[in-house]
């Protein structure tokens, strides 16, 4: 109700805005937040116009949301705010290949009766390609500001959902009153992922591959039918208004790519296999295992957004009595860690057109993880290209963004030192010509020996917990790690048996009740487990509930907060 009212208000605001001309918008601003001028001159800066090209003592003039000039002898407009940038470095702002930035996760669809059918309702099966992330955008989401602070001006934001959640959009990471203000390109890509419907068809990769083929094949038929009907409808059966099918039409016409969110190498191959069978333009994104695919990606000209989510560096046991076998296994595990962190260099070497996908990586880990790729062989020019020019070309927006050149959109990042050096910090961001400034703090001196930022937040749930899930097959344990950004919690569960980490979703904490859910793969089928419980001091007592085959099974989950 509340949000609806807000939406109406936005609509009214927008209407009045279009009546008043844009140039006069600063005249009546009761908030006093509007800038005095939108014309800026960054003087005497070191400008990295694009990867590998650096201009010294150069002035960049930003006006009307555009880069008006880049040069040594620029004449500075009278109304420009002059910023002495002689100690600063100017780059094109970063472009994120895929994340949910600015999108709000909709509530899980209600479980319909009788799910055990060959064709459950599309909303539950997750087949909603006709939708758009635009409907999920929340301009107040803290993810927009935090990604901007990490140097990004554009995100290809994708909708939440299951196998075919809808279309992604390119959004400008600006503070705005209304979603329409930040949408740069609607319908950027048809977004797809391997997320099965819990307990319904298609439940796993087997069904999803088949469903894809079936949907696409019918869409090709429907498209042909619609086109013939449009030419001459007389005497022809009327084509159905099938929105799912219609959503594929621009893809079939090669006008819109399919973006597959695929992390593992086999999942990437499956997306490529569908592409080979069906013939749609494909972008793979969020990829965590690309090293075996470098040559094939190059040969098939498949753009890729590499995940910025990196594995933690494994630590060898310091047990002096450990067996030779254990030591050998640790060595092999390290071998694969090295392969993981060297994959960006491998793509660079193979000449693959790649960018980075922020995905669910916390914005304060992004620079660190890019640095890890650089430390393992990626050149700094290639890293910058993967954050600017490459994503611009993959997403079809190189004409307007990706470099610091006259006529481009004023998406500019200003840093205190050359990028990818230890002292580099974002000092200023320009997004669509709007300026944001950041206070660059000196490295905090630890007051009392500790420098643990999460400990200082004082939040009762953030931090690391040791949990035990009591299942009929025995106890399962691991760490439950929760962090908080703005008002949003995020977290993951590790497992003592070495299974991969599991993301905690929909974390909420209110009145000492902590609730979240996570999904596990049970024999190839995604099963959701909902955990609800109470936090008392450093202990958490909860019940974990699984709905499977129409039945609810409950288990106990207890956790104790680790000492900081």
């Amino acid at each position, binding site marked *: 109700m509340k949000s609806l009212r807000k939406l109406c208000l936005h609509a009214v605001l927008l209407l009045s805005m279009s009546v008043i001309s844009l140039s006069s918008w600063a005249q009546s601003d009761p908030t006093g937040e509007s800038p005095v001028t939108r014309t800026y001159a960054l003087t005497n800066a070191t400008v990295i116009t694009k990867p590998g090209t650096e201009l010294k003592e150069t002035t960049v003039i930003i006006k009307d949301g555009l880069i008006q000039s880049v040069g040594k002898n620029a004449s500075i407009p009278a109304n420009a705010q002059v910023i002495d940038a002689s100690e600063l470095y100017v780059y094109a702002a970063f472009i994120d290949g895929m994340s949910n930035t600015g999108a709000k996760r909709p509530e899980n669809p209600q479980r319909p009766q009788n799910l055990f059918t060959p064709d459950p309702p599309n909303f539950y099966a997750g087949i909603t390609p006709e939708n758009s992330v635009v409907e999920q955008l929340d301009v107040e989401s803290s993810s927009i500001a935090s990604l901007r602070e990490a140097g990004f001006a554009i995100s290809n934001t994708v909708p939440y959902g299951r196998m075919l959640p809808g279309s992604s959009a390119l959004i400008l990471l600006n503070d705005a009153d209304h979603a329409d203000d930040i949408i740069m390109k609607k319908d950027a890509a048809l977004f797809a992922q391997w997320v099965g419907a819990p307990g319904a068809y298609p*439940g796993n990769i*087997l069904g999803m591959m088949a469903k894809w083929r079936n949907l696409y094949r019918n869409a090709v038929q429907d498209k042909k039918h619609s086109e013939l009907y449009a030419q001459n409808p007389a005497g022809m059966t009327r084509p159905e208004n099938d929105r799912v099918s219609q959503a594929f039409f621009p893809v079939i016409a090669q006008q819109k790519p399919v973006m597959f969110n695929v992390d593992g*190498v086999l999942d990437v191959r499956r997306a490529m296999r569908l592409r080979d069978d069906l013939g749609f333009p494909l972008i793979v994104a969020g990829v965590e295992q690309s090293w075996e695919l470098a040559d094939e990606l190059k040969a098939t000209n498949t753009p890729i957004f590499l995940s910025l989510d990196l594995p933690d560096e494994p630590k060898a046991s310091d047990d002096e009595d450990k067996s030779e076998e254990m030591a050998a*296994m640790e060595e092999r595990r390290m071998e694969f860690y090295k392969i993981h962190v060297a994959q960006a260099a491998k793509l660079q070497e193979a000449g693959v057109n790649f960018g980075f996908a922020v995905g669910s990586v916390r914005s304060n880990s992004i620079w660190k993880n890019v640095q890890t790729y650089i430390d393992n062989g990626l050149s700094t020019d290639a890293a910058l290209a993967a954050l600017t020019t490459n994503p611009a070309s993959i997403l079809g927006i190189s004409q307007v963004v990706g470099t610091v050149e006259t006529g481009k959109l004023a998406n500019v990042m200003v840093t205190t030192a050359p990028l990818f050096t230890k002292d580099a910090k974002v000092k200023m961001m320009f997004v669509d010509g709007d300026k944001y400034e950041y206070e660059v703090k000196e490295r905090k001196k630890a007051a009392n020996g500790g420098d643990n930022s999460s400990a200082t937040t004082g939040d009762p749930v953030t931090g690391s917990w040791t949990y035990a899930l009591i299942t009929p097959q025995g106890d399962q344990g691991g760490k439950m790690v929760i962090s908080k950004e703005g008002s949003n919690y995020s977290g993951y569960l590790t497992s003592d048996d070495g299974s991969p980490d599991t993301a905690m979703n929909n974390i909420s904490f209110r009145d000492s009740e902590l609730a979240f859910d996570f999904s596990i793969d049970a*024999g*190839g*089928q995604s099963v959701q487990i909902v955990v609800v419980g109470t936090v008392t001091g450093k202990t958490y007592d909860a019940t974990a509930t699984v709905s499977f085959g129409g039945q609810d099974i409950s288990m106990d989950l207890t956790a104790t907060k680790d000492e900081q």
Partner: protein
Amino acid sequence: MKTKNILLSLLLVLCTSAFAQEAPKGDVLFKGGTVLTITNGALENTDVLVRDGKISRIGKGLRAPNGVETVDITGKFLMPGIIDAHSHIAGSAINEGTSQVTAEVSMEDVVDPYDVSIYRALAGGVTSIHLMHGSANVIGGQNETMKLRWGQTDPDMLRFEGAPRTIKFALGENPTRGARARGIQPQSRMGIEMMLRNSFSEAQEYEKRWKAYNASKDPKKVAPEYDLRMQTLVDILNGEVLVHCHSYRADEIYMLLKVFSDFNIPRLTFQHANEAYKVAPELAAFGATASVFADWWAYKLEVYYSTAYNAAILHENGVLTSINSDSGELIRHLFHEAAKTQKYGNLSDDEALAMITLNPAKQLGIDNRVGSIEVGKDADIAIFDNHPLSIYAVPQMTFVDGVKYFDINNDKADQRIYIDPESSIEEVTLFEKMDYNHRCMEGAAIFFGQNLINHQH
């Protein structure tokens, strides 16, 4: 615009086919072993020459052409690589069990080349498996016939090129269990039969719609809805997809024979089929085949009425029979399983070995390529130190297309080809070291940590 699209798709095809790689093929001369041909008895002191992945000569005193490696197998035994007609290793998912008829799904989409079980199977002399969909639903998914080319990480590289399509059906307790819990069809074996008949009848209607569409000369014709599920059933009716049906009881086996007779589907293999011996003459009359366990039963009610003579009885009644594993463990010693037909049924060496080579090859429609040692066949070969039907037999080397994928003398401890950098490592615990008080476990020498058995990639 249109020509541009055509060009684009052409380009796409070109790009992808340009990248398509061929599986590696090897050249090798096996010198001086006992060659168990399956189709032509045991040939002592015989050489086998492999050129470009195929068996090119079998004889005595063969000489290695230039550049071809010679493997001395004096005193050893050479047999065709073992074929497991029922396996669930190397699959990322096994059941799409969310609906009772999922003919459209295919295991070829979910092959997992990183599963270390592939290497373990090679170490048991296995060269091909039939990766099957599970038995959760009446008409499950299509299966994938594979060659175990361990180390290849592109799933396409593990396909048995040219093998016919096959599909999994399931009768009895498994598909009715889920349905009863949900209160839907099929609640009983009767419901399963009706579900099969309805599905085939629907497929016939589907085929009619498409035939009418294709035959129509009306310029205003509109294509019927495409349905991959129905299309697969049509392909079964037309004999293009071989059915392998999970079954136990004689009554359900007989029921399916009648259904297939009514719909004129000629080829049918029963998997498990523990009670098949009760209807062996009927199976023989139909021409149906069986793929069974040597001696595994009583794990649920419908599998109590069983005998270790099942394979031998079926064989003696003229039913083509194979012995399968359905297990990542049994697959490592299928030669032992085959040998049990000599204890329970007195089958000859050739007959017993055919149960794990030529017979499964016939059931999978790949007997023109593998299953025996004959000139022109694929060089999928297992080498044993003793006769493979001896309890002392240990596999020594395994070749697929003349390329060696297992060698007991070069068997490094950690064969995994992918390791999760965030996985934890457990110390292997030796019981003797740990605790002498566990008298009840005396004799059980070694206990492996969970991680060592269930390596996850």
